[in-house]
């Protein structure tokens, strides 16, 4: 007779605050799980699609990475992606080379020379530059930079140089923002010590400020490069899209992203050509991981 009573007590309802806590925990955990599942799914699908070029279509990895001829519909089909890889690396490297000094100068201006003016005018300008959509950059590149390059240099104006210039403006905000944060975080005693020794401002900047913040500045540059490497439409619009390694900076060429952009819609799912495009996407993805890894290494050095 006593048994049911004990049972009844055990069934006693869960206290409201415990239940509500569980609801919150489960909800937020599901959200973060969604994020994790998404990234795992992206990696899984891109990798399985991208690798099927090698396993199902029998293309040699070495041939894809080093081959110079891209003619996937030809007879026999050729999957040499080196021109695209070369195009992606050269445009993003050149863009970083152009944007890095500009970004660092802007950061120095905003933190060391005129912080007031910098915060009030330059900062919003940088933020607006970051906000302009990439297709608009592509459009301006196509209607301003390409004709300008065509007028000054031999060739059609399209090519690596046009792509790099567009990308340089696009990644300038990334580099500037990170450099500014790094410079602003410097302890002021460091600079004052140098001034006290009679060093000029520039001596202080390039002997003390830049060396101590170098890992952080490089972080910005790498993040900028990473963004440039993955940018698709703005580059595709000004680079010309010819699948070969150009002989000059002003000759039509292509990148990984523009090859995907142009052809993905015109290929049949599962075909060798389609899978080869996924292989290009896999290269992009791998490069993203490498960039993130480099940034992590730099950040670790920065914290030391």
């Amino acid at each position: 007779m006593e048994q049911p009573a004990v049972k009844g007590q055990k069934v006693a309802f869960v206290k409201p605050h415990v239940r509500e806590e569980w609801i919150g925990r489960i909800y937020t955990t599901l959200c973060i799980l969604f994020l994790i599942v998404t990234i795992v799914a992206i990696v899984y699908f891109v990798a399985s699609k991208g690798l099927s070029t090698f396993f199902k279509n029998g293309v040699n990895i070495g041939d894809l990475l080093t081959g110079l001829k891209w003619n996937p519909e030809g007879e026999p089909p050729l999957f040499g992606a080196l021109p695209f890889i070369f195009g992606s690396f050269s445009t993003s490297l050149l863009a970083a080379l152009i944007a890095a000094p500009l970004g660092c100068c802007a950061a120095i201006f905003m933190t060391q020379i005129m912080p007031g003016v910098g915060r009030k005018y330059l900062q919003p300008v940088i933020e607006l530059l970051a906000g302009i959509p990439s297709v608009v950059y592509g459009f301006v590149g196509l209607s301003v930079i390409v004709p300008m390059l065509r007028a000054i240099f031999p060739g059609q104006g399209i090519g690596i140089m046009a792509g790099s210039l567009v990308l340089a403006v696009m990644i300038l905000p990334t580099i500037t923002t990170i450099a500014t944060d790094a410079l602003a975080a410097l302890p002021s005693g460091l600079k004052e010590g140098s001034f006290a020794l009679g060093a000029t401002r520039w001596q202080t900047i390039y002997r003390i400020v830049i060396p101590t913040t170098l890992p952080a500045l490089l972080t910005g540059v790498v993040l900028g490069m990473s963004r440039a490497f993955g940018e698709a439409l703005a580059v595709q619009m000004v680079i010309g899209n010819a699948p070969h390694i150009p002989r000059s900076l002003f000759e039509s060429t292509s990148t990984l992203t523009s090859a995907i952009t142009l052809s993905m819609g015109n290929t049949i799912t599962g075909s060798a050509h389609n899978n080869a495009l996924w292989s290009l996407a896999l290269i992009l993805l791998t490069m993203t991981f490498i960039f993130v890894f480099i940034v992590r290494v730099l950040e670790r050095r920065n914290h030391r």
Partner: protein
Amino acid sequence: MNAKTADRIATVVIFAVAAFIVLLLIGLLGFILVRGISHISWDFLTSAPETIKAGGGIGPQLFNSLFLLVLTMLITVPIGVGAGIFMSQYAKPGRLTNSIRLVVEVLSSFPSIVVGLFGMLVFVQKFDIGFSLLSGALALTVFNLPLMVRITEQAMSGVPREQKEASLALGLSRWKTITSVMFPIALPTIITGTILAAGRVFGEAAALLFTAGMSSPRLDFTDWNPLSPFSPLNPLRPAETLAVHIWKINSEGLAPDAAEIAAGASAVLVITVLLFNFGARWFGRYLHRKFTATR
């Protein structure tokens, strides 16, 4: 060269670079607006595009962009805020949390074209949603989530510790503390960040090429039944957004006035993004004033 001269030259160079960047933005905006604004008219904003004739507008594209933005934010905000709260309040410091943070960082640096491909494969093909607003919104969600998570996490971590402790000490559960005490304080920062993120979503094109598609059906703006294939509100129809449209007419536009349309559409896009930017700024300042006012 002595140190004084070097200092002077360096200062001049740095000033010049700063001025150059400001001029760059002015030139850029000036070019887009001057080239485009003359082409913007009520007719341009509302009429449908023409493929081979001159005089087409961007009405459906503009509508698609706005609709897609709303859809995306409806999906992104609840998930992003939830995940951000998890990261700032529930994740215990340690290996696991560090790896989750790495995941978010990696996801935020994925090229948007790859996100678009993933969306095409999973949403369009595997889930069989087809080229549609919904597929596009899901792809943009993937693209936008890491940013939303970071915004929320930072805003929540910025709430003073004493506020959280005061609520816990009254005997409130953690979840109630988060939702009733911390979240309202973090909200202004979250809203400002969300508006900026919305601007980014509005201008995104690469992730949409293979998810929302590059064409729109002839929309019937009198048909507001969301299930009808020609209704603007149908989330399962393909939809070319403004940003995608700009890309498309630049690369394959056949209309004789393609250049003008591109200029006009770019101006509209930039103006909208500027509005988002100024809106976020204004809203941030307004809330700041409201919260720091003595009364």
